[in-house]
Each structure stands twice: as structure tokens, then as C-alpha cells.
């Protein structure tokens, strides 16, 4: 975006914010600004249109508790802010109808498939694609993330903590929501609410909201606690992946899991890192184009997927 256009948009936003005050009365000043440049009105219309759509925001924001079998929720650009008629509503399906409460305790998702399971105690596990998770009907406060990624929303009970196992690590909640990624011999945990204990018997790591760790199997030292952006934890669930200096290979892995996209990174681009927000679009070419543009790479088709080169 050109500096002028960005500036005009900032001015349009200023007008919009001021106009939301019922006592705003500088309509002549606003008209003068519109008259300065024919583009101003178009820019204002776009911003005001977006603002009007925000009327649909619910009074309190909560994650929606829906079970999404098969196709993941994916935002579409065409429908964005403009084609509600084309958007299908996602219905809620009870856990029992998916047969997950029976003996079937191993849940495996395909790449790009998202699934939410509700546990009897009110806890909820949102599972990203290409993931394997095991639950046990005899141990309702336990889950094992074999591989992949899941977001846990755990109802806390003092006397009966919820335990998540992954690799050889044990994660114990203290009333919380947290995201766990199990990659090849590596575990990442990020906490968005409450507190969790990571390997409390061995490493004694305590993670509060906004903190996370990256641990490799066989590390001698306990993992270092890092700051993480609470808002971006579990962003895969809504199709918005936020990165802050993340290696492209990790981004590619996330795209595979979250959207079933095959993205390989050419060797000369492997040391590049990515910063920015990626939207998982129905048209995957757009997502790739965004990734390429924001990481300074070039994307080309390769088989069923893409390759990013420098």
C-alpha cells in the first residue's frame, strides 16, 4: 500500500471513530476532507462498511463450542464481509454421534481436518489436522497427544487434575486453556489461560497465561520459559496463523497440519524466517501468495503442492 493511501485510510478511520460519538458535529470538516481527493470517499466507504459489519459482534466474545467434522472451517475471501449467503452454517454435533465415547479412544485427523471433542466433565479438546490423540473412557481426566497439535480447554478440579501426556512429557493443568504441538521429537506448549505444570516431577516448569516452552526430547536442561502472544495461541482453529520470526519450515509444517497444504522450502530459503499473519484461504494459492510476499520468497507449483524459493 502506498504511503498516501495508508495515510488516507488512517484519516478515514479517524473520521469514523469521531463520528461514532453521537455529539459529533464537524460534518463540514468531513465534507472538506472528502472533497480534497475523489479517492477519499471510496476509502471511507470501505472502512465504514467494515465498521457496519461489526454490528454483528456478540456482546461477549467466547470461543464457539461446535464440533466440526470433516471439512475445517475456512474463511473465504469472496465471502468475506460480503457474501453471507454463500456461507454455510456449521452445526453442532454431539460427541456420542461421532462414536468417540465408545471404545474408540484413538482419534486421528487427516491433514487439514479439524475436530473438536467434548469430554464428559465439560472439558474440550480441539484437534488440528494430521494429529493423533488418545483418550481413555476409564480415565476421563487424561489425554495423550501422540503427534500433531491440539488446544485443550480444561475444567479444573483441585482434587483431580487433568493430565496431558506427549512424548515423554507430562503436562498438568491448574484450570486452563493451552495449546500443545508435538513435532518430531519436539514439544511446544503455549498457555492462553490459567496455569499448567510441565513435567512437574522432573523439570518443575510452571507456565502461566502468555508463557510457553519449546522442549526437545532428551534435553538435559528444563526448557526455557518464553513469552508468547496470547491472542495467537491456537490461531489454527480460526484459520489465522500468526508468526513472529518463525522458520519457514515450521510454517510449512503448520500449513500441512492445519490446511492439508504441501509446502516445501528450497534449501537456499530454509534459513528465512516469517513474520506476519496468514489467513488460510479456500483458494490456497492466495495463502501461498501471501506467505511468499511476506517472507520475500517466490512460490511455484510442485506436484500437488508448492515450493518456496528465494
Amino acid at each position, binding site marked *: 500500500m502506498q504511503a498516501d493511501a495508508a495515510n488516507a485510510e488512517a484519516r478515514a478511520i479517524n473520521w469514523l471513530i469521531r463520528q461514532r460519538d453521537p455529539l459529533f458535529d464537524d460534518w463540514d470538516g468531513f465534507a472538506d476532507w472528502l472533497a480534497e481527493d475523489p479517492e477519499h470517499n471510496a476509502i471511507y466507504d470501505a472502512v465504514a462498511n467494515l465498521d457496519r459489519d461489526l454490528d454483528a459482534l456478540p456482546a461477549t466474545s467466547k470461543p464457539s463450542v461446535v464440533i466440526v467434522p470433516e471439512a475445517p472451517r475456512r474463511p473465504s475471501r*469472496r465471502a468475506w464481509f460480503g457474501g453471507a449467503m454463500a456461507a454455510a452454517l456449521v452445526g453442532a454435533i454431539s460427541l456420542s454421534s461421532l462414536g468417540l465415547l465408545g471404545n474408540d479412544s484413538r482419534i486421528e485427523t487427516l491433514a487439514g481436518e479439524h475436530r473438536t471433542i467434548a469430554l464428559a466433565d465439560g472439558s474440550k479438546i480441539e484437534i488440528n489436522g494430521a494429529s493423533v490423540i488418545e483418550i481413555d473412557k476409564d480415565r476421563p481426566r487424561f489425554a495423550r497427544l501422540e503427534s500433531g497439535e491440539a488446544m485443550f480447554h480444561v475444567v479444573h478440579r483441585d482434587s483431580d487434575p487433568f493430565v496431558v501426556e506427549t512424548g515423554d512429557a507430562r503436562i498438568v493443568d491448574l484450570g486452563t486453556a493451552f495449546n500443545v504441538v508435538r513435532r518430531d521429537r519436539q514439544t511446544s506448549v503455549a498457555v492462553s489461560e490459567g496455569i499448567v505444570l510441565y513435567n512437574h516431577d522432573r523439570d518443575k516448569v510452571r507456565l502461566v497465561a502468555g508463557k510457553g516452552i519449546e522442549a526437545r526430547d532428551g534435553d538435559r536442561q528444563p526448557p526455557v520459559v518464553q513469552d508468547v502472544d496470547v491472542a495467537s495461541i491456537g490461531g489454527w482453529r480460526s484459520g489465522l496463523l500468526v508468526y513472529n520470526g518463525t522458520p519457514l519450515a515450521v510454517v510449512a509444517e503448520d500449513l500441512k497440519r492445519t490446511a492439508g497444504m504441501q509446502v516445501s522450502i528450497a534449501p537456499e530459503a530454509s534459513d528465512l524466517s516469517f513474520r506476519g499473519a496468514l489467513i488460510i484461504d479456500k483458494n490456497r494459492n492466495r495463502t501461498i501468495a501471501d506467505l511468499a510476499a511476506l517472507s520475500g520468497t517466490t512460490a511455484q507449483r510442485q506436484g500437488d503442492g508448492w515450493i518456496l524459493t528465494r
Partner: protein
Amino acid sequence: MAFQSKQSMTESPDRTDAAQGIEGVLLANRDRIVRFLEVRGAGDGAEDLFQDLWMRMTDRKTGPISDPLPYIMRAANNLMLDRYRSARQSELRDKAWGEASATQIPSTETSLISREQLTLVETAITATGERPARIFRRFRVDGQNQRDIASEMGVSLSTVEADLRKVYAALATIRRQFDAS
């Protein structure tokens, strides 16, 4: 002196008769309103839209309005936004369904945003940070004014303003990412 003029204001006839007041203000400010409609995207159609606005404003039963001109200008601004949204909606409908269903009258009351898009918007708002997101929700969802938000959160008015700009800019950016083709 001040007391006297205040008293004469409350007794002024166009304050007690709202409908007549609106018509009077519309007529008295006709050029100003037409000019506004012109630059607000109506162009040559500004005169016709002034008639539309006239119908809208005089049709409606309203209580007494303390300051009619800003009220009219706001209505004119909304009229233009409604037109923009109607045009945009039928354009999208045509794209999505072809000519067949384009006969339906586009309604500006219908929300143009789907549930899944809303989830994205909420994520984007949250992603701007805890304080900006909270300030934005108080402002835009709860309709709280900036001054009250500032005192409630214990921050300055300029901080509130800056946070609101930041969130709106983030939403505009995300939306551009979607619209780009």
C-alpha cells in the same frame, strides 16, 4: 443574559414541533446537504438523493431533536453507506448466484458478515493486544464513549484514541488481504 437566551431557545417553535423543524432545517441547509451528498459519492445524483433524504426524514416519527443539522448530516451519511452496501451486496450476489437471484431486493439490514468471518474478526481484534482489544470492545460493542473508557481503564484519552485507531487499522488490513485478488 445567558439565562435569557437559554430560555428563548427552549421556547423556539421549531424545537417543539419536530417534523416542521426538520423540514425547515432541510430547506435552510439545502445547499450544504447537497454538497455533502456530492462529495460523499452521490456526484450528479446529489439532488435526487436530497429528495430521498427528505422522504426519509419527514416520514419518520421522531421525538424532538435538540440539534437537527448534525442529525440530518448523519442521516445523509448513513444513506450513502446504505447505498454502497446495497450495491456491493447485489454485486456479490450476482457473482455468487448468477443473474437468476439478482431480482431479490438487497437489504441493508442483513448482516453482510458470516459467522466464520466474525470469528476471524474477533481473532484479529484479540491479536492487537489485551488493552487495545478491550478498549475496542468497550467502544464498538458496548457503545461506551472514549472519555468513560479512559477513566474506567485508567489511561489517557489519547491512549484510547490510539488503541482504537490501531484496531481499526488492523481490521482494514486483514480485510484488504481478503479482498485482494
